[in-house]
């Protein structure tokens, strides 16, 4: 019934917390990783600033490569650099990459089995005013269906930073998704993080909420709000592939009911991955907080998150519903 100490979440979690976009974690993580590993290069498709590559481009101009507005080339040039021995980070908006170049990622990164790092920015409806074309809501589903591919959706700035730094050390293709808008910083520099490991951020015995991206914060807030009524366990499941089966199944064995929460389509994302795991191992009832098989639209990020059911109250509703199905 409390926040786990080992997780080292920020002290004032339930009060005013600082906010930063996860894409900032990419920009800072990339520069720090590149200082340690000379093989790292970064490629961008005419979105240097908004993908947060500007810092890298300034610090390592010789290692920054402009691909032009050409996402298929972005990925395939990157894959070539990876076959040669570089560690390329290719980035654009997730709606365009991996959105436009799925086959190139499948063939030249995953089937080639080279360490291409695909960084998808502006994922989710919290992109805001740009509207549906720019709000990637299918990227987790499309990426996690490819063999050899690791899929990560960090919850806050620090998780994003750590995911990028760690991804450089993994000799495999990987997809990491980031958001455009500011989101609460819930972890600290010292919070434990490892790609492939789910973190229990709050223990409870009645329901397990498995969340990724900005929904981790909403899940924690939801758990706090109903703590007297329902005892909720919250897991930050940043790595959607491969799943940390041990942690997840252990939690569900205890609680017997699951809510998944993500800023992604309800089909094929985190909810789908968790359902597959449970169907095979422990068929517990599952409710999903996600975008319900429709496209986003223009609007301020917070209005959209509200309108598309991505807030604390939506998580609470799902928790109450799943408890009844136990």
């Amino acid at each position, binding site marked *: 019934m409390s926040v786990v100490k080992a997780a080292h979440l920020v002290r004032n979690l339930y009060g005013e917390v600082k906010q930063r976009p996860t894409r900032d974690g990419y920009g800072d993580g990339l520069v720090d990783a590149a200082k340690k590993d000379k093989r790292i290069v970064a490629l961008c498709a005419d979105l240097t600033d908004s993908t947060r590559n500007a810092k890298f481009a300034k610090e390592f101009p010789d290692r920054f*490569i402009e691909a*032009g507005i050409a996402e298929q080339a972005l990925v395939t040039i*990157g894959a070539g*650099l990876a*076959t*040669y021995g570089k560690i390329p980070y290719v980035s654009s908006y997730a709606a365009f990459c991996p959105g436009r170049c799925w086959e190139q990622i499948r*063939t030249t990164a995953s089937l080639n089995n080279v360490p291409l790092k695909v960084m998808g920015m502006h994922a989710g409806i919290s992109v805001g005013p740009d509207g549906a074309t720019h709000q990637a809501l299918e990227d987790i589903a499309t990426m996690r269906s490819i063999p050899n591919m690791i899929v990560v959706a960090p919850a806050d700035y620090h998780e994003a930073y750590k995911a990028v730094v760690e991804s450089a050390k993994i000799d495999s293709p990987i997809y990491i998704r980031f958001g455009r808008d500011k989101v609460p910083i819930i972890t600290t520099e010292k919070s434990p993080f490892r790609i492939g490991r789910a973190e229990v951020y709050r223990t409870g015995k009645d329901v397990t909420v498995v969340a990724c991206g900005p929904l981790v914060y909403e899940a924690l807030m939801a758990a706090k709000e109903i703590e007297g009524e329902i005892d909720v366990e919250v897991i930050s499941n940043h790595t959607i592939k491969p799943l940390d089966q041990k942690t997840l199944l252990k939690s569900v064995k205890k609680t017997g009911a699951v809510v998944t929460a993500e800023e992604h389509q309800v089909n094929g994302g985190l909810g789908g991955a968790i359902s597959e795991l449970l169907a095979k191992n422990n068929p517990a009832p599952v409710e999903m907080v996600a975008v319900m098989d429709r496209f986003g639209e223009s609007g301020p990020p917070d209005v959209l998150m509200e309108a598309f059911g991505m807030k604390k109250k939506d998580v609470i509703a799902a928790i109450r519903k799943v408890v009844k199905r136990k």
Partner: protein
Amino acid sequence: MNALVFRHHVNGKKNDFANWVEGCFDDKNLAKKLRKARSQKAMMDVLRKELHTKQMVKIDDANHLDEIANFIRQDLIKMLLAAGSGHSAGTLGMADVFTALYFNVLNHRPRQPNWEGRDRLFLSNGHITPVRYAAMARAGYFPLSELKTLRQFGTRLQGHPEREKLPGVENTSGPLGSGLAQAAGVAYGARMDGKRFNVYCICGDGEMDEGNHWEAVLWAGKNALPNLTLIIDRNNIQIDGFTEDVMPLEPLREKYEAFRWHVIDVDGHSIQSIIDACNEALSVREQPVAIIAHTIPGKGVDFIENKFEWHGKPPNKEEAKKALHQLRTLAGKIQGEHE
């Protein structure tokens, strides 16, 4: 060879193997190493090591190269017949280009396929991979007997080439239009690090319908990659018909020139011309080079030549017999072995 025979050739008075190596190959270094190796085992170790790090010897003799290309074409007919599926026209049409590359142009070590200093050969139109496999086997990458496993379950010779399956294959390909970008990426990385090797990419003409290809053409032109050579198999056919009917590519030369490339047109069946064009490409230091190799699809077998219907099908038993006969008799110029 038993110990007695070995001792007859290698003893206190003489070393026939070392003399032979020195006399026939003019390789004094290897001869010296062999003279030092006193036992049969030691001598084998020297040879194994030598083979492992041996650079492919460049063959200059035109007749010899033509003969290799002919053998590769025969290999192809047998492979495609055994596989029961695959692409006949494009593979036969590229036998001369692959012979030029593997037996003269490329710096490579067949016994050490991942040698860091090797020239990289990317294949963008993965469906013609049988001709690459045949050239690789003939160059010594793997036994010729493995060629008949093409497209079979468990084979390293996948229907479309896979980097993870067969050492020496630089890129997985099949989906079209992505090879040049990967080759350009390698060329860019190599230039960053001051590496001396060259990067070659072979692509089909039909696949130039793909946007991904032209994105890479733009990008390589912008970056003026001097270590990148694209060889275009200009055979004018694709699955649905002639390229100029399906999606016209002409004026092709001018397109590449407009994208800041240096362009060389070449007869894709003159091995010497292909070698010369590749050498010219090396001397162009301020632009990437596109060699447009004008080829005849199905070259060497008259009933396959220039027929787009043969793009994606293998010969049957009867056709294979006819094709092999044509190749073995150099289209009737010499007598076949069973006549």
